[in-house]
């Protein structure tokens, strides 16, 4: 079972490997470094993306109608599936939220792991701390700088216990 720390190490080494030094994290560049092409697809609104691997073919399809921060999250989420070696769960057909989260269900577990990786990649802890020290807990500034949704940023800041630390 992978942990947040493994996801963190993996995300940080990818960021370094790709030569990224500041937010927003160039997630497409990270994907390309791992051999993926990004393809924009006309998915329905509630379908964010999918990963397709077949022999040498490695692609991530993202919803072309979504805004930049959602697209970025989808790419990072799919990379999380790839790096955690998740397998073959097609069309879960379920909406995941914390209320019906079931850790014994491998699909749920995989989705959560992929989201954890996405957070580590898009909002690296070290980067956040540096920015928080520089301009404090300014959520609008942070979400713009990292090009993530406000919700993702809040979840990230609270789970790292940075929100309470930096709030006045």
């Amino acid at each position, binding site marked *: 079972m992978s942990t947040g720390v493994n996801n963190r190490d993996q995300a940080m080494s990818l960021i370094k490997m790709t030569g990224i030094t500041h937010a927003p994290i160039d997630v497409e560049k990270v994907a390309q470094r791992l051999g993926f092409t990004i393809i924009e697809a006309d998915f329905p609104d509630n379908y964010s993306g999918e990963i397709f691997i077949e022999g040498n073919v490695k692609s991530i399809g993202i919803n072309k109608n979504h805004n930049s921060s959602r697209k970025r999250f989808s790419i990072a989420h799919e990379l999380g599936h790839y790096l955690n070696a998740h397998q073959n769960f097609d*069309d879960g057909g379920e909406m995941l939220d914390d209320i019906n989260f079931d850790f014994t269900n491998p699909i749920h577990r995989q989705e959560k792991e992929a989201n954890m990786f996405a957070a580590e990649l898009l909002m690296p802890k070290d980067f956040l701390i540096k920015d928080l020290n520089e301009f404090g807990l300014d959520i609008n500034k942070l979400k713009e700088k990292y090009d993530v949704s406000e919700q993702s940023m809040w979840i990230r800041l609270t789970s790292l216990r940075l929100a309470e630390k930096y709030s006045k």
Partner: protein
Amino acid sequence: MITKEELGRKIRDLRSRNNKSQGELGNYLSKSHAAISDIERGKTELSVSDLNKISQFFGVPVENLLSETTSPYYAGTISLHRADRGMSDMDKIKMQKAREEFIKKAREINQ
């Protein structure tokens, strides 16, 4: 062409990665778990209909079951599971079409 033994290993690998028992796969194929064990050890020739059912069971295209790829990914697709709830039939059709186009494009680009 993939051998029976390789195919059997692939099926066993897929099954364990998906946390399914031989009994569960057996139920789906109307076979005993012993029959599944034979398949996984390459003792049985699979029928086309069984191959189809296995591909459905794991959500993996038949051609990927039969390809000789050694990649840990048998070209299964992994989706963000935010989809489908409350999706209208129109949306489902749209999604299927968009997914097919995406996969087609992916194959073309990476040729």
